[in-house]
């Protein structure tokens, strides 16, 4: 048992941290206020190899592993969650293509995603009436010779407008109750019949783009199919387990940002003649934030380490996502409290952290879905033993 990072992991962490401090953090408040997609930052992440951290080097990826990826997300998220979620979705799409794609698909898409030649990848699974219950999907794809015609609507699609390539799930057969009948496709931006709809006006992560998509007779060749016909949900669930590590890492970064800001403020701000950090009421909030940060980080890194070792990690990823995202709510709440009135203004970053954190218990599986997954896994195994 060894909790120390190896050299590659440390190097990725340092790289991400430096970029986060020098480039991402200074731009975050303005990008948030203007709802401005940070294209320059995304290109910068591409140059550093942070858009395809866990993708083979042969296809332009960094091939640094799932732990390094989690560490990189933590660092970027500590500066700006919106940039981090854009980065996370691109990494997720890259990993999916690397895992399920044909050689041709890998050669076509991975180097461009890794280098930010296309600004992002997108993951088009959710629909207006099918969120956590992916089996209720209505978008369908009909085969015509060696082509597929996709019709339907998707919603809540991160980077759906800026993505050069989107993974799109569509029903290709009847639902069999076991999650069958759905197939995944790689659809390139600009394909006729693919329309970008409304941009969501979000509470937080406002510098990330979230859009609705419509597919109206959108045709793709059979060579754009990702994985086998009818195996789409298997593809989706494999991605979501990894995606949960990404959100757990993002939430961990949020907690650290909230803690760091609170420590700085509590040292400076005086009340009753001393810095408020000297009042136990404040100091103990900082202690609790630190403990919750470390638990979130350890759970996220454990899930990542299991993934990297090729072992099952479904339960662990759900635990990390559930715990980290809920701990983040508590941490940002405490951070605002420690800041008092100024914490409620956009003059200090904690207000943004407070808004950004809120989505973390919702997207990539709500807390309720995580608890269902955990309960299902533990009732199957019988006990929680490490």
């Amino acid at each position: 048992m060894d909790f120390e990072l190896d050299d590659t992991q440390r190097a990725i962490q340092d790289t991400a941290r430096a970029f986060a401090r020098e480039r991402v953090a200074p731009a975050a408040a303005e990008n948030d206020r203007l709802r401005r997609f940070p294209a320059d930052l995304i290109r910068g992440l591409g140059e550093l190899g942070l858009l395809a951290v866990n993708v083979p080097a042969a296809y332009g990826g960094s091939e640094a592993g799932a732990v390094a990826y989690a560490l990189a997300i933590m660092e970027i998220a500590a500066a700006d969650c919106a940039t981090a979620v854009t980065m996370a979705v691109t990494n997720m799409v890259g990993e999916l293509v690397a895992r399920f794609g044909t050689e041709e698909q890998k050669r076509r898409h991975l180097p461009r995603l890794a280098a930010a030649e296309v600004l992002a990848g997108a993951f088009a699974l959710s629909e207006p009436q099918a969120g956590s219950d992916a089996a209720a999907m209505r978008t369908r794809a009909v085969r015509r010779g060696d082509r597929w015609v996709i019709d339907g609507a998707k919603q809540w699609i991160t980077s759906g407008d800026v993505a050069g390539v989107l993974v799109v799930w569509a029903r290709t057969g009847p639902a069999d109750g076991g999650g069958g009948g759905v197939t995944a496709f790689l659809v390139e931006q600009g394909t006729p019949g693919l329309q970008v709809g409304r941009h969501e006006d979000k509470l937080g992560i406002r510098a990330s783009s979230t859009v609705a998509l419509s597919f109206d007779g959108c045709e793709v060749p059979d060579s754009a199919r990702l994985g086998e016909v009818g195996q789409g949900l298997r593809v989706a669930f494999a991605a979501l387990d990894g995606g949960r590590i990404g959100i757990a890492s993002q939430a961990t970064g949020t907690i650290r940002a909230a803690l760091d800001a609170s420590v700085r403020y509590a040292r400076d701000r005086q009340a009753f003649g001393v810095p408020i950090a000297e009042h136990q009421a404040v100091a103990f909030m900082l202690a609790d934030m630190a403990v919750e940060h470390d638990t979130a980080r350890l759970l996220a890194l454990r899930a990542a380490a299991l993934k990297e070792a090729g072992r099952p990690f479904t339960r662990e990823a759900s635990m990390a996502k559930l715990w980290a995202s809920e701990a983040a709510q508590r941490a940002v709440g405490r951070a605002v409290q420690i800041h008092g009135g100024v914490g409620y203004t956009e003059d200090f970053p904690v207000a943004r952290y407070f808004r950004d954190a809120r989505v973390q218990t919702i997207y990539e599986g709500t807390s309720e879905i995580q608890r269902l997954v955990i309960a299902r896994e533990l009732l199957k195994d019988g006990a929680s033993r490490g």
Partner: protein
Amino acid sequence: MDIQLTEEQRQVRDLCREFADRELRPNARRWDRDHEFPAAAVKQLGEMGLMGVAVPAEWGGAGMDNVSYALAMEEISRGCAGTGVIMSVSNSLYCDPVLKYGTDAQRKEFLEPFARGEKLGCFALTEPMSGSDAAEMRTVAVRRGDEYVLDGTKNFITNGPQADVALVFAMTDKAKRHKGISAFLVPTDARGFSRGKPDEKVGIRASGSCSLFFEGCAIPARYRLGEEGDGFKIAMGTLDGGRIGIAGQALGIAVAAFEEAVAYAKERKAFGQPITQFQAIQFMLADMATEIDAARLLVLRAAAAKDRGVRHSAESAMAKLFASEMSERVTSKAIQIHGGYGYVKEFDVERHWRDSRITEIYEGTSEIQRLVISASVLKG
């Protein structure tokens, strides 16, 4: 980063789990009810090397690492939390400081038989008016020629009723406050030593605790551990390790309650189906399992830091704080899942709940842990 256990660590865990299932779990309810010290089980723990897990073999210990110790603490406490604290005091609070600060002569006399489990030690820091604030202690030790003479009272001393030797902290120079504290190894057959009657406790009732009285208690000067004035440093360094043990104990208590809650929920039917079919129950179990895993990671991280020989005060404090508060939440939920049966003594979850409560108090209250952690955060 490698979160897998080594083969040796896995073996220790499995051995302890098996021992706990066989020897501790079936008896824990009776020991609790009768306030009975589990002498036979403690003897077996000694034979297994568990009273001095991280003590090198040449000094009578098992020569294993602190990760193994933390795993052992979890498993033994899962079987019986009272037995767990007896073991923790022997390992963390007694053997560890004697190994670290003792001379070879002291190790021979005061470590070997203790690490082997033939004798039992205790750690006497707390006093009636001085708990977390150790610098306020009133017990004094005065040098007279080749002897020290101790006067004072120690309180709530776990293993006190059975101990052969007490590691006692006393003021040798009151003016220097905490820097005037020294540590002494006091055999309990020394003249001027006596014990109070065992405390009647809410939980961990298989372990005994009592007051220790020193009235002109004379011991040879060579029984001083470390230099004069080293006492506070020895006590605080020891407690860093002790907190790993108690965190492991709190974790084991929670795991026991969780396992029993899962087993009960699978059996118990309501509204025509097992209660595991209701999200209200599933979600409680999911939260319990998640918190248990989070606590275990903190405990193992602190133990691994100790094994690497780096400072681990904040890590130990985090593990202790989180695991103990987690344990109270998890054991309480286990009672909730059991309903009325959770409130009666035919089931063990009420005991787990009582046992968990002390882990937030001893070896540094939750408040002391938060002080340690916030100081570290504000310094960092």
